[in-house]
């Protein structure tokens, strides 16, 4: 039976490849996050991808495994009692709304924000937004006065709708906090995060909080998202979650380099881009962590979250503005910090932070509830201000300087320098080209026409007396005109080859290959024409590379590859010769580099001694008038 199953399994794997394993990995999501539209959709998506694009599925498998492992560990971190959670908690403690295990003060009237997790009940989150507090207080005043008066603990649970906001109010049974907050039986929406408020009339019964913490009441880290799912209770999170997550993570990490080997080529060109971007925009990148710190200063509100999102958008679109915003944001933090230091008591009363023996306000790493913590907040504010001030000349200052005194922005200066250089090259090249044409016409066709005229004059003179001699002179004149034409032809070919003018780069290179004495393999895919100057520059660049291969390399064959993608024309000329070509020696390739430089094109030569030689040229340009041609 087992053997049969194994055979079927290997057959299926052979048919669809390893990508099919994506389906069971996705199915783990159901076990981890519960049965929901999303998790089922993920499994279906995995199945479709595995069947339709097995290659892509196989590549995605390791990454998915790593993702599953990490999410497993994150969930484990949320679960009280698992070893991972203790690590997470100790890291998260400074950011927490409430220190773990801190006693709930008796008689603390008003909303308390905290997080509870009950493994036996499926787990839920208790979190109050100021709006919810107001709503609840109203409701409690109107409906549950009796319960409060009786000294019982009243709990209200707001089941969040997808759109947010309270949907249903459930009055808990009377009794201890532990009982009411952590209901024993199944409860509507168990396993979801709730917004709720425990309200104490006379303080919780002794021992209730202890029970609560024992059951897993934990701090709520600032990055916890409202409305998320928690794993159902059972074997999963209790025993298997951490080992399985670690196994998936290890396997995934081990497999990732293999599956990404194909993408490495693209990644290799991307990595320096990303590094350059980070170096150029390093101060702008700071905006995102700074706005995240803002969450711990102003609390989790729609507008603070919007600020984080805006920071990401600004960073992506206008990195310079992002850099300029960093000191401004830091200054705002500092103002808030100084205000707190001076005025913490009244602000804390309004803010209604977590119970800490009295009202309190959080400010980044400290919870302000006493004169000493207020001073600490002031110190923190000074640090923010100092850092902001240090950044000003590096961000706003630089940008203002470059705006008001153009010519100091290093990027612009570099560009101007490059343009000046390439323009000089272009003008020089055009001038020397005109000189060459002038000289060729002067010494060639023009001289021949002069000779022709003189011949004809001589014919005029000798015709009446010596027709025989006149005939010879006429033959000579005809010969002279043939030579003049031939020289003009060569000249025209050097200025702008006729096939290039007729049919564009692809055909012109084919014609060039036909005139080359070496066997030349062509792989050209150009679905359109390039602009005439680019076409001409590229044609002569290829002609130069080809001539070098014929003259110096001793190659037996040459390969020319031309592709156009992402508005970049890429030309490769490779030969199997002796190599050792040095583009800095000799003027040919330097001339090509200069000519391509006019179009922001680049030339790279790889030619190790012993060969092979590969000349790569890239020119940014657009294709026009789609005509299909490939050879």
């Amino acid at each position, binding site marked *: 039976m087992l053997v049969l199953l194994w055979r079927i399994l290997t057959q299926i794997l052979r048919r669809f490849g390893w990508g099919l394993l994506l389906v069971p990995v996705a199915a783990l999501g159901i076990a981890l996050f519960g049965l929901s539209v999303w998790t089922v959709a993920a499994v279906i998506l995995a199945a479709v991808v595995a069947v339709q694009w097995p290659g892509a599925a196989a590549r995605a498998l390791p990454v998915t495994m790593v993702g599953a492992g990490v999410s497993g560990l994150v969930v484990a971190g949320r679960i009280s009692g698992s070893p991972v959670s203790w690590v997470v908690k100790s890291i998260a403690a400074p950011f927490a709304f409430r220190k773990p295990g801190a006693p709930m003060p008796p008689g603390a009237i008003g909303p308390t924000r905290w997080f509870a997790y009950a493994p036996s009940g499926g787990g839920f989150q208790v979190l109050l937004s100021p709006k919810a507090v107001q709503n609840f207080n109203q409701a409690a005043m109107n409906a549950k006065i009796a319960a409060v008066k009786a000294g019982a603990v009243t709990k209200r649970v707001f089941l969040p709708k997808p759109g947010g906001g309270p949907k249903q109010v459930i009055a808990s049974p009377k009794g201890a906090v532990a009982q009411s907050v952590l209901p024993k039986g199944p409860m509507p929406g168990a396993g979801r995060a709730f917004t709720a408020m425990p309200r104490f009339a006379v303080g919780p019964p002794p021992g209730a909080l202890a029970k609560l913490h024992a059951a897993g009441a934990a701090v709520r880290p600032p990055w916890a998202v409202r409305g998320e799912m928690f794993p159902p209770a059972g074997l999963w999170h209790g025993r298997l979650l951490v080992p399985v997550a670690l196994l998936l993570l290890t396997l995934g990490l081990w497999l990732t380099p293999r599956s990404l080997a194909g993408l490495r080529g693209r990644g290799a060109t991307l990595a320096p881009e990303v590094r350059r971007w980070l170096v150029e925009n390093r101060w702008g990148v700071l905006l995102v962590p700074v706005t995240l710190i803002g969450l711990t200063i102003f609390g989790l509100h729609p507008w603070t979250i919007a600020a984080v999102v805006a920071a990401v958008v600004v960073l992506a679109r206008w990195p310079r503005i992002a850099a300029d915003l960093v000191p401004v944001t830091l200054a705002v933090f500092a103002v808030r910090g100084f205000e707190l230091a001076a005025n913490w008591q009244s602000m804390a009363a309004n803010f209604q932070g977590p119970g800490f023996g009295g009202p309190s306000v959080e400010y980044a790493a400290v919870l302000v509830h006493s004169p000493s913590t207020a001073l600490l907040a002031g110190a923190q504010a000074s640090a923010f201000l100092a850092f902001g001030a240090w950044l000003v000349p590096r961000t706003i200052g630089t940008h203002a300087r470059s705006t008001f005194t153009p010519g100091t922005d290093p990027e612009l200066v570099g560009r101007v320098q490059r343009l000046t250089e390439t323009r000089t090259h272009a003008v020089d090249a055009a001038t020397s080209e005109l000189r060459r044409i002038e000289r060729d016409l002067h010494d060639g066709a023009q001289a021949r026409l002069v000779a022709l005229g003189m011949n004809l004059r001589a014919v005029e003179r000798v015709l009446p007396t010596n027709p025989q001699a006149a005939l010879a002179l006429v033959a000579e004149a005809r010969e002279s005109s043939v030579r003049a*034409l031939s020289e003009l032809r060569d000249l025209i070919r050097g200025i702008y080859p*006729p*096939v290039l003018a007729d049919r564009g780069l692809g055909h012109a290179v084919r014609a060039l290959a*036909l005139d080359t004495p070496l066997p030349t393999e062509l792989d050209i895919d150009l679905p359109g024409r390039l602009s005439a100057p680019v076409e001409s520059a590229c044609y002569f660049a290829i002609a130069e590379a080809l001539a070098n291969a014929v003259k110096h390399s001793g190659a037996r064959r040459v390969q020319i590859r031309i592709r156009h993608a992402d508005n970049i024309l890429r030309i490769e000329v490779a030969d199997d010769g002796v190599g050792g070509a040095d583009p800095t020696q000799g003027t040919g390739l330097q001339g090509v580099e200069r000519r391509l430089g006019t179009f922001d094109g680049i030339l790279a030569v790889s030619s190790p001694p012993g060969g092979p030689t590969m000349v790569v040229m890239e020119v940014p340009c657009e294709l026009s008038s789609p005509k299909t041609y490939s050879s």
Partner: protein
Amino acid sequence: MRVVVAEDLFLLRDGLTRLLTAHDFEIAAAVDNAPGLLSALLEQRPDVAIVDVRLPPTFADDGLQAALTARREVPGLPVVLLSQYVEQLYARELLADQAGAVGYLLKDRVFNDDQFVDAIRTVAGGGTVMDPEVVTKLLGRRSKDEPVSRLSGREREVLALMAEGRSNVAIAQRLFITEKAVSKHTTSIFTKLDLAASEDDNRRVLAVLAYLNA
């Protein structure tokens, strides 16, 4: 013999018409653009057409394209292409259909009217005529080639003239040797290049060109 002439420069068109009339050709049509040429070729069905490669409307290789199109419609329609320059690429396209009855000449060849008219008559008779410049390039490309390098100097001369489309008689006249000597050279060339010998001049030219073009 009825001829269609396609040339956009008036002076040249006029000159060609005169030259051909003087040699007893009948001008069926003289056009100055590619669409006009195509319709003239398909309607008049001339014995031979003389076509400039570069013609309006785009002044690219419109004449060549029109000639190729007409030859697809009417296989073996005799066409002589004239151009200021010769390109192996275009020669290849003309020879690709292996039907013969094509010529590809530099405009300079008009200067030697006897040879030019001979070439036109050869093409009209189903023969193939290539400009010496094309043949020089073809031979240059194959010069490093084993079999071609085994040919003697005289044999190479004969090969070049054969590729241009000349008959044994013409080759003999040109090289000042007897016809018998020419046929001896041709036999030797065909053996060295491992080509199937043929008595038919036209097939012989096509075989040589196909070999050089490979």
